[in-house]
Structures are given as structure tokens and as C-alpha cells.
């Protein structure tokens, strides 16, 4: 039981804490496989122990091997092999059946999210029926509870893989080839997703938070995200905005409502509303943000974000501005 408890891992990133219909099936498949494998393991170990004990007894008592030993051995091996084949077949069939039930996208999926994997972060775009209703963000997905969400997966550099263990299985993100997956969250929560295909130096620090929340809360969030960035009213934040637009930042990042519209790095229009920065690496606090801006290679060696040498007052202004992007 202790072992099982360890297996569960963190509750917000675990197959054994399923929170949606897809993950439920994956979890029951896991339990079925676990139970079957456990029984097979116990039976095999038991058989081995029994055989060893009997051989020992025969040796001690000086018994001869029965004359039909050869035949009995053949029969034993045949039964064992057949049992293995049958068990594997059952595994295969259950696996395929579960896979098939996961695949079809429900006809009604009110939300479509275009997810693009990049080294080493996630570009998130909510595709609305109207062009104006689209939302661009990064590294954090909000979904309403009880609604299926369709994901269109692509990658812009190497192959990545999307895995929210609590909600669904894995699906690869392949450059130049759009794949789709869907899932639904039945309970509200902050679920952690992780890139599940080795994609370079910072593969480990490429996380994505899927936040399932009640419909009303989700609507409020997406309406907020649709708005252009807040224009600063105080002079410090205004100076920060200028630092952002005239310096290195605008070469890679976009903030809707300003002239910055580059897509090399994550969109920062509503940066302050996110929980983490650097793809789930650091909490979104002023200190962490400062450290990340000044020396990102310390936090995520190899990340494509270069160090920024800023005068202290400029950095301070920039942080104030970024923290105002609610």
C-alpha cells in the first residue's frame, strides 16, 4: 500500500487520480493491467517456490524422477505458454478497446484549443468561430468543468508530447502535421501536464497547467483574455512599457495592444494572470520574474531566452509593468 501510495505521485499529475472520463478509462485499464500482472506475478513466484521446495524434498528423500517427467514438463510448459498468450491477448484487446473509446472526438465540443509545442514552452490559442474571439496565451490552459475540449496539436521545432495524466493519455506534437486529441475534466482543479517526449535540454522544465473551473469562472477568464493589454496609468509602469518596447523584449514577445507582436517567445498580454512563468518552472512572483529576466540561463540552462542587462531602475519599471498585465 505504501508502494502504491508512492506510485500515485503528486495528486495533480497522476494517472491514478483521474478527473475525467478519458482518464477514468485509462486508470481502469491501468488497474486491470496491474491486477492481472500482480496475479501472474504471484502465481509465477508461487509456482517457482513450490517447484523449488519439491525438488529440495525429493533430493532430501532420495526420490527418483518419475519416468514420465519429460511428458509432464512438456505439458506444464504448454499450459504456461498458452496462459501467457491468452493473457497477452486479453491485454491487447482491452488496450485496443480502451484506445478506441478514447479516440472519437465528441460531436459537440464547444472549445477548440490550438496547442503548439516549442522548445521549451507551450503556445496556446483558443480558436473561436470568429477571428476576433481568438485568444492567445501560453503555458496555461483554462477549461470549463464537464465540457469536452478539442485540442489541435502541432510543433514548430522538434517532436513534443502532450500529457495531462489526470485527464487523458499522451499525444505527440509533430512539426508540420496537425493531430487532434480531446478531454474533459469532471472535477475542478489545477492539473499539471508535462512534455512526454524528450525534446532537448530543458525537456524536463516544459510543463503546462490545465486549470479546470466552473463554467462561469471560465467565461470570466476568457473574456478577460480577449481584451488587449492594460495600458499603464502610473509613470513607473509606463516607463516599464517603454523599456519593453524599445529593448530586447519586443524582439521575441507579443503584447496585444502594443506594437510588440513577435512570436518567438510566449505571448505576455495577460502575463500577470498566470500562475507560473517559464513553462511551469517558477511561481509568478516579482522576485522570480526578476531573476528569470536577468539570468534565465541560471534557471533553465539552454533556454532560448537570452540574459537581459538592465539598469536597476529599468528592471524595476519593467517588473511593475509586467505585473500590471492582469
Amino acid at each position, binding site marked *: 500500500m505504501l508502494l502504491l501510495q508512492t506510485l500515485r505521485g503528486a495528486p495533480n499529475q497522476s494517472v491514478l487520480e483521474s478527473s475525467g472520463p478519458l482518464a477514468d478509462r485509462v486508470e481502469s485499464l491501468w488497474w486491470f493491467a496491474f491486477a492481472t500482472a500482480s496475479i501472474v506475478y504471484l502465481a509465477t513466484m508461487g509456482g517457482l517456490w513450490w517447484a523449488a521446495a519439491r525438488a529440495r524434498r525429493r533430493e532430501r528423500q532420495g526420490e527418483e524422477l518419475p519416468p514420465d517427467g519429460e511428458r509432464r514438463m512438456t505439458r506444464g510448459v504448454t499450459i504456461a505458454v498458452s496462459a501467457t498468450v491468452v493473457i497477452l491477448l486479453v491485454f491487447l484487446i482491452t488496450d485496443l478497446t480502451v484506445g478506441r473509446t478514447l479516440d472519437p472526438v465528441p460531436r459537440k465540443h464547444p472549445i477548440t484549443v490550438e496547442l503548439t509545442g516549442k522548445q521549451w514552452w507551450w503556445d496556446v490559442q483558443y480558436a473561436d468561430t*470568429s477571428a476576433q474571439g481568438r485568444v492567445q496565451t501560453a503555458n496555461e490552459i483554462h477549461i470549463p468543468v464537464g465540457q469536452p475540449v478539442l485540442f489541435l496539436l502541432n510543433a514548430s521545432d522538434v517532436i513534443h508530447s502532450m500529457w495531462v495524466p489526470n485527464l487523458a493519455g499522451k499525444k505527440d506534437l509533430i512539426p508540420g502535421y496537425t493531430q487532434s486529441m480531446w478531454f474533459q475534466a469532471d472535477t475542478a482543479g489545477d492539473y499539471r501536464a508535462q512534455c512526454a517526449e524528450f525534446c532537448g535540454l530543458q525537456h524536463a522544465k516544459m510543463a503546462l497547467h490545465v486549470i479546470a473551473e466552473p463554467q462561469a469562472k471560465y467565461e470570466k477568464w476568457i473574456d478577460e483574455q480577449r481584451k488587449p493589454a492594460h495600458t499603464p496609468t502610473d509613470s513607473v509602469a509606463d516607463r516599464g512599457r517603454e523599456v519593453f518596447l524599445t529593448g530586447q523584449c519586443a524582439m521575441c514577445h507579443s503584447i496585444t495592444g502594443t506594437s510588440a507582436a513577435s512570436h518567438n517567445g510566449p505571448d505576455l498580454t495577460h502575463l500577470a494572470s498566470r500562475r507560473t512563468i517559464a513553462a511551469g518552472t517558477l511561481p509568478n512572483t516579482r522576485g522570480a520574474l526578476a531573476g528569470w529576466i536577468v539570468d534565465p540561463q541560471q534557471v533553465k540552462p539552454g533556454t532560448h531566452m537570452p540574459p537581459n542587462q538592465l539598469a536597476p531602475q529599468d528592471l524595476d519599471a519593467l517588473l511593475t509593468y509586467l505585473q500590471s498585465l492582469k
Partner: protein
Amino acid sequence: MARCRPDVSRSCVWALTSAKRMCGVLTLGVALIMAQACTREQTPERAHDPAVPAAPAMAGPRASVALDAEDGQWTMPAKSYSAARFSQLGEITADNVKSLRPAWSFSTSVLRGHEEPPIVVNNTMYVLTPYPNILYALDLTQPGAPKKWQYEPKPESAAQGVACCDVVNRGPSFADGKIVFNTLDNNVVAVDAATGNALWKTKVGDINTGETMTMAPLVVKGKVLVGNSGGEMGVRGWLKALDLASGKLLWTAYSTGPDSEVKIGSRFKAFYPKDRGKDLGVKSWPGEQWKIGGGTVWGWLSYDPQLNLVYYGTANPGPWNPDQRPGDNKWTSSLMARDPDTGDAVWAFQMSPHDLHDYDGVNESILLDVPWKGQTRKALLHPDRNGYVYLMDRSTGEVLSANPFVHITTSRQVNLANGSLEYVSEKEPEIGKVVRDICPASPGGKDWQPSSFSPRTGLVYIPHQNLCEDEEGLEANYIAGTPYVGMNVRMYEGPGGHRGELTAWDPIAARPAWKLTEKYPVWSGTLVTAGDVVFYGTMDGWFKAVDARNGKPLWQYRTGSGIIGQPVTYRGPDGKQYVAVMAGVGGWAGAIVAGNLDPRDSTAALGFAAAMKDLPSDTQKGGTLYVFALP
């Protein structure tokens, strides 16, 4: 034939074969009927053999155009407000053009692409060069036309870095004793035509946002109408009106954004439902991308004084990569009709919604009066980059016909019921995917090079290219003042192996009357005269004259550099008819020579260099004005 509807294809075959055998009225009649039966035109390679005299359109009813009385001058690049580029001078005819010879020449001292026409007013010729936009005045009354004066606006040299397709200029305009032109660094300049003194200079754009100006202004009712270039740089397109007397800005009409800024108000009435709605210039874009969405106005304007409407097209949306701008992207790749007094839009029509292949809509609109189903319609003829020749009612924006003039794989047809272009989804570019055999290529069936129309033959002479391309979508990054394209492109010749064509288009039958093929894209404008001669130049330096009735080659002269300019004709002080053209290769098509590009990289010059690999061996840089006359 495959392009006709299956149910009518047999009759199409019959019509075409008979058209080849017979001449005269009968052919025209058959052709007229069949052109209605086939929704699509026959493929260009099956067009009439130029050697065979085609059905002279003059036999039946033909289109006409409003012309001013011929004064022997050439005061604006398009010759007249109707943009016909037709001269009523008839001294040079199809019969005597063979003895045409150079009279004099003039070096501009600039070696970039010379797309501009010289203009002729009051026995003075005005020659405007590409960047650095020097304006020369040449005295035509003196032998050899010596220089009277020159005016140097000294544009900012950094502007060259944001000019997408060579540092060209498409010409000056004359009005009210002033020569008006645009400089590459976004200044509109008015110069006294007599003295060469600058009268006013107004800055209307900023090179730091990627804006440049290359178009020729049109002066209408004391207003100078100018537009910007930079659809490849994430520029927001506009048309501005400046007061001719003072240079003061009167109004600005943007191509994207809210209705108030596009100047769509109570007078606006689009013909098709797809072009109706509030604030489409914002709603058809994601987020605030309309602010960097292109739709620049770098092409031609024409004007109907009776309706008091100015017509012009808007350029491609930015970036080229369509994945990054879901929506119709209004009003890019569109035709606009505006009241020049207020700038108010009266109608608009989007040719290529959510443009996929850089099909700008900036090409010229020739204002024709066309006999159409028993009545005369005030029409405009617009050969678009998407490969169709649009014939539209110019008072309402209704599409009368839209048939292809080049090989097209990117769309199936223009649906006349709702005006929409039916795209072929397999040819849609995508990030990280290579899509091949896209026809026409990004420069379109036809680019900026202006057509001409002769009321004598009723034909439109369309200079154009025959190119296809491969495309690979890339993620485009908007960094102000740098390119915003997001596409790897590689162009190559279209079916037939030739890269250029001159098509004589019959606007009533909506099909080509005849076609000539050229080795390189025909990147020069055409000129047609009352002597029934069509003049045009080729990129390997030949200046050619062909018979306007049947395309028979009549005369040619080899100039010092490839010709991409606009030929003009005028009557000299001695009463003789002269023909003039600039020779100086460049532009997008000639960038490989003008910019010394390396075609080992097939994406050089946005992919155009790949199609022009052999050009450097056929021509070299130049910048010379050639003037021809009969002996």
C-alpha cells in the same frame, strides 16, 4: 478543355476548333455564345495561335472608353482618368512602324529598376528615377532634348532597407503647373513644372514601421491621392488625399480597422452580402492584427468624373502566412470605390478573402463602357493577381464576368452568384508544410504592370507572367521595420515553359483574343495607339511593337537593359509622333540583376530569383530613357 464544365466541354471543343478555322462575324457570334456556356476559359496554351488573325472584335459590338481630346501630351502615367493608356496619335501605324528608329536617349544615372513612365507636358519631358527619386526636366524643343533642370528630393537612404521589391517608383503626375510624385521615404513632393522649385513637401509615412512609397499619385479635383507600400513589412495600408495647392493632408482612409477609419459610412453599399457588416476591418482579424495587416495602396487609381468615384485596389494581408491571421482579413486584396471629395467608401469588393498566396488587389482598373446583355454598362475591367479578369459594374460593384487569363490551380472559379473566390483547399499553405504547384505564383497572374485598352479594337492588352511556385509556411515574427512574411517561396515557369505572356483580352466575350509568349515575365506596361500598334518591353531588353488586331510582331529594338517601364507616346514640337520608354531592369522580377542576388538560394527575392536564374546572362543593370520616332 478540361477546364470547361463536362456537360458543355464537347460544344467548347467544337467552338474552339471552328474558331480556328473560321474568321469573321460568325466566329465572334459562336465565341460569344460559347463563352457564356463555359464558366471557365480555355487554358492559355490553347488560346488562338497568334499567327492566325483572330476574330477582330471590331466586327461586333465593342467596349468603349471615355477619352479626353488628344493634345499630344502624356500628363499622367495612365494617360487618362479611365486608365486606358490609349493614344489617339496615329502617325505610327502597323504598316510603317517597321522603320521606327531611336531619336535620342537620356541616362538617369541610376541603376535600379525603372518602372516609371516619362511624362510629357508643354514640350517638356519629366523623367523621375527610382530611389534617389531625381526628377529631370528635358526640353523637347531643343535638338537632343537637353536638361532644363533637375530636382533632387534627397530621400533618406535607410528607406532602401524597407522597400520590398527594389527601390522603384511608378511615376510622377502633372496637374495645375505642378509635377507631383512620391519619394521612397514617404514624402509627397510638388515641384513647379516650369522652374523645378519645390512648392511643398509633405511627410505622410514612417520608414521605421516599414512604410515606403512607390506608387504614382493621381490628382483629382485639386486633391493628390497617394497610398503607401510595405505589405511585406506589416504596414497598415492607407489612401491619403493632400491638397494640391498646399500639400495639407485632407483625409486618410485606412484599408483595415474600424469603419470610421476605413471611411465606411452611410453611403457605403456593397453589392454582395459577404462584403456587408459593421467594422469588418476589425472583426475579420484576430486580436489587433489589423493594425499590422497590410492592405497597402501601392498600385493604380482610376477616376470616373461622372460618378465622382475613385477606384483602387488594396494589397495583400500581412503576413503572407495565412495561419497567423484567421478570418477574411478585410479590406485587403479588395477593390474600393471612394468619393474623392470626402474619402467616403461607396462600395467595396474583396477579390481574395483571407488571401493565401500574396494576391494583392492593386492592379489597374480600366473604366470601360461595355455593351452587356442588351444594355451599356458602366464597367471597370480589373485583371487581378489571383488570375481572373474581373469585369464589374463600376457604379455598384457587381461582378459581370470573371474568367481566368492564366493557368490557375489555387481556385476553382469566381462564383458570380455571391462574388466569392472558390479556393482549392489542397493549395493552402501551412506552417512547416511544403505545398507544390501553386499557380499563379505570388506575383500573380499579373502584377503591377499596367494594361492598355484600345477602343478601336475593343481589346485590353494585358502584360503578365506565367509562373507557378512552391510554398512552405514559416512562423512570421512582427518586428516593426523588418519583413513580416513567414513564407519560403520558390517560383518556376508555368505550363508551356515560357515565363511571360501578352494577352489581348476581349472584355465582352471575356476570353483572350490572342496571346504572345515571352521568355521572361512581361514586367513592362503596354501602350496602344490609334495606329493599331501595341508597344511593350521585355526583361531581356527588347522594345517591341505588335499589331493590335492580331498580335503580329512588327518591330523590335534592343535596348541597353531589361525593360520594366511604361511606354508612352507624344507629339513633339515638330509635330511628329514619338514613343518613349525607360530601360533599366529591376523590380521584384529583376531584383536578381538589380540587387546582385544569388540564385543558388532558390528562396532569394521571396522566391522570384529561382525563376529568373538566367536573367543575369541576358541583361545587365541600366537606367536609360529611349525615344523613338519615324525617320
